[in-house]
């Protein structure tokens, strides 16, 4: 399950990056009441940063793609236990 492991690390790194993006020093850089493209700078930044984080997650998860063979739920409960990591 090495792939899951790498994916986990990437996702954690992305989460840390997200925390950085939405935190004080970077927020302060865009903390001005000016309009950029007609939109307040801070709002534009937040939504763009948000979109960047989401695209990053989509990229990490969809590129590394396929089914991991972890269990499916439904009525039967555990049918295919995942291989031990």
């Amino acid at each position: 399950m090495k792939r899951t492991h790498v994916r986990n690390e990437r996702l954690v790194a992305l989460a840390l990056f997200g925390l950085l993006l939405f935190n004080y020093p970077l927020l302060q850089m865009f903390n001005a009441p000016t309009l950029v493209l007609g939109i307040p700078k801070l709002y534009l930044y937040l939504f763009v940063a948000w979109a960047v984080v989401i695209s990053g997650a989509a990229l990490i998860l969809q590129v590394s793609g396929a089914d991991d063979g972890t269990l499916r739920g439904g009525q039967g409960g555990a049918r295919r236990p995942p291989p031990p990591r």
Partner: protein
Amino acid sequence: MLRDWVVISVACAYLGLLFAIAYYADRRADRGRSLIANPYIYSLSLAVYATAWTFYGSVGRAVSTGIGFLPIYIGPTIMCLLWWILLRKIILISKVHRITSLADFIASRYGKSALVAGLVTVIAVIGILPYISLQLKAISTAFTIVHSHDVEVVGAGHGGPFLSDTALYAALILAAFTIMFGTRHLDASERHEGMVAAIAFESLVKLVAFLAVGGFVTWGMFDGFRDVFTRARELPGVQALFVIGGTGDGQTGVLASLYSATFFAMLAIMFLPRQCQVAVVENVDVNHVKTAIWLFPLYMLVINLFVPAIAFGGMVHFAGTPVDPDTYVLTLPLSRGQNGLGLLVFIGGLSAATGMVIVETIALSTMVCNDLAMPLLLRWPALRLNERKNLTGLLLGIRRGAILVMLLLGYLYFRIAGEAYALVSIGLISFAAVAQFAPACLGGLFWKGGTRAGALAGLSAGFLVWLYTLLVPAFAKSGWVPMSIVEAGPFGIEALRPLQLFGLTGLDQITHGMIWSMLANVGAYVAFSLSTTQSAVEHSQATLFVDVFKHSAAGTGSLFWRGGVSVQELRALLSRFLGADKADDVLEGYARDRRLRSAWEVEADANLIQFAETKLAGAIGGASAHAMVASVVKEAPLTMDEVMSILDEASQIMKYSRELEKTSRELTSAYADLSSANEQLKELDRMKDDFVSHVSHELRTPLTSIRSFSEILHDHPQLDAATRTKYLSVVIQEAERLTRLINQVLDLSKIEAGRVDWRIAVVSPREVVEHAVAATSQLFAEKAATLEVDVPEEVPPILADRDRLVQVVINLLSNAAKFCADPGGRVSISLRAEPGVVRVDVRDNGMGIAAKDQELIFEKFRQGGDTLTTKPRGTGLGLPISREIIQHFGGRLWVESEPGRGATFSFVIPLRRQAEVGGGDVPDDRAAALGAPGTEAGATGTEPR
């Protein structure tokens, strides 16, 4: 102006459509073609997170705090990134253990504790009530606005009579609807496919409605985003909303409140009962989480896209009128006469509110029924529930009652406290309540050391602080408790003011509550966990939870066999909670899985008990199921024995490892033995080489002289007779010496090889000594040395080979004769009977032997003194042979000497007791015992044998 009947009938039609979708999805599920088994439906169902609060409240929050509405969605976005680690583990555990609610999850983790389950349920219900009331408030406000078209309505239900209050009817209709949705039948897996399908549909509706109103405001009422923001900027005070900390509250405080909202939202997305329900309980395939990780945040981003535009557009549009910003979403299109759009928005808001209420109350009713009501009822002896045949009706009744009661309580809260707060603040109070589950839940997920006491302490402490810092002020604002408690502190104690606890000021209410409740919660959880010990069940559950990826591969970690029960008893138990048909189905399924022909062949073993318990857990919760199964299995409570059997695996491993260690130690010692044996062999080999080279050297010396004298005699026939005789005598002497040497070498090797033919008999030491003295008298005479003989009359006999013993004494005497002083040589021999031994001493007055040589002379071919400069005066084999002989008789031979003052060679031979005299060989053990002090000789590798 929309007519009442239009609004009501559209709303009812919409609810009917939802019900149809749910019904269709349930039918599909029954036919095994699940409608919801795809990641997109899963992601949409997660969007139940976006409630009326998002739909109406975000705009209100944006108007009052600028970007303050965003943390509620950015927090979950970041949390989602960790879902592949966190949520996947929770889902896996829940599927393995048939966990059907958050309370069940936490209680199962802490030893299936009914107390923990009950506490979690109480916290969840009390914490979520404000949230439910928020939805009721939203629905009733929206309805009032739509039907009165009075955009300036600040809120519905201004304390008017109950019967004319739309919120009450909304609550009742929602209760009926939820009951129809969620509790039509009792399902062991507690999954509601129909509900999930309806929720996903509702998520689409609210998204479309919000985007529609956003688009209308941005492009219909204004000329795009630039127009909205440019016109808004000109309003007084709006620029301050474009930045953080512009509203004059101080940047630190604003940032703190942003962070605390983010933090609570991060936890809420995991621990809100409805999120647990859709994300964990209703999850079909854990791989769906992968898509949800990005798709669900994307949904949140899209639904928030127009929030700033609507907020600032509304501020521009309604500048100077007292329209509640929480209603902008609805009032903006209505103010432009867009009744159709207004109706769509109303339906969107209804979607958001009903979705939340349905899922939340179903999740809570499951908790209340399984984790609060059933454990209490089952423990109430007067009810005799244990004897009831079929409890499914009771279970459904409790759940339906719980749904109704919760909605009515929500309504009550709305009447009491709802007016005082904006939508978002009410929601955040609920977020703070469910955040209290985080330490016990996340801690329990990764830390095996968390104990039941820790969980109880953490939950209670966090919850009490939450009550005090967040709920009490809310009640105070609505006049339910005196305001003086908030302003002056209880009993006038300032340090205990709920909003400035212990003097912590400068923070908003939510941040302040977060800091204190989390401190209390985490602190108590860790402290109590570290200071208490786990019971056996707790320990086993902790391991199963934390190591779920390991254990799920090996099955569900079946319980240890703890008592006797028949299949019939388990069937009866199952049918009481699931119904008789369902119970039979379940058992047949169990039999099929084990390739048995029918349920009658099933054996009531630990697996079946475990199976029954998980099936029951689906219906009545883990703690109750455990209690019920325990009641029929007649098991003893976990005893020390069971702890031991749980530990058995561990002890097996330890035993195995000890055996490994032992084997390893044995191998090491065997290796040491082998290498020392190898060393000995090498030493022996070296000694043999030495011996051979010594022998050849010793043989060559006499041979050389024999040969050279013979050649002289041969080459010079004219030599005179005297010289010839002299030379011939040298040849003869050397030949004799050669013979003696060869004899001795043969002797020694025979002794060492144990091939000597010992003729052991009773020997008189006195006679031996006298014989030897007589044989050597010639030697002494030649050297003009005196020999003093000191032999007592009576010496006890010994067991020995007479000839060999004589050989030893002669050897010692001839050595003494050789090495005694010349002239004036004096040698004495004495024989003594000492306790247990006979002792012979041979003393000379020669040059003595240096201490370093005293052992050396007993080695083969070694002689005292410097053999390089002085001519050897013997073969160098006499003493080794003598020592071998004496040791064979069980005695020992040694020398005492000081250089310059002569040497004394002594040996002792043990006496035989009278009874033994006259028979047999000297026993080896005796020989070894007596030979021990002299084993230096033995250490050369020749055992005295």
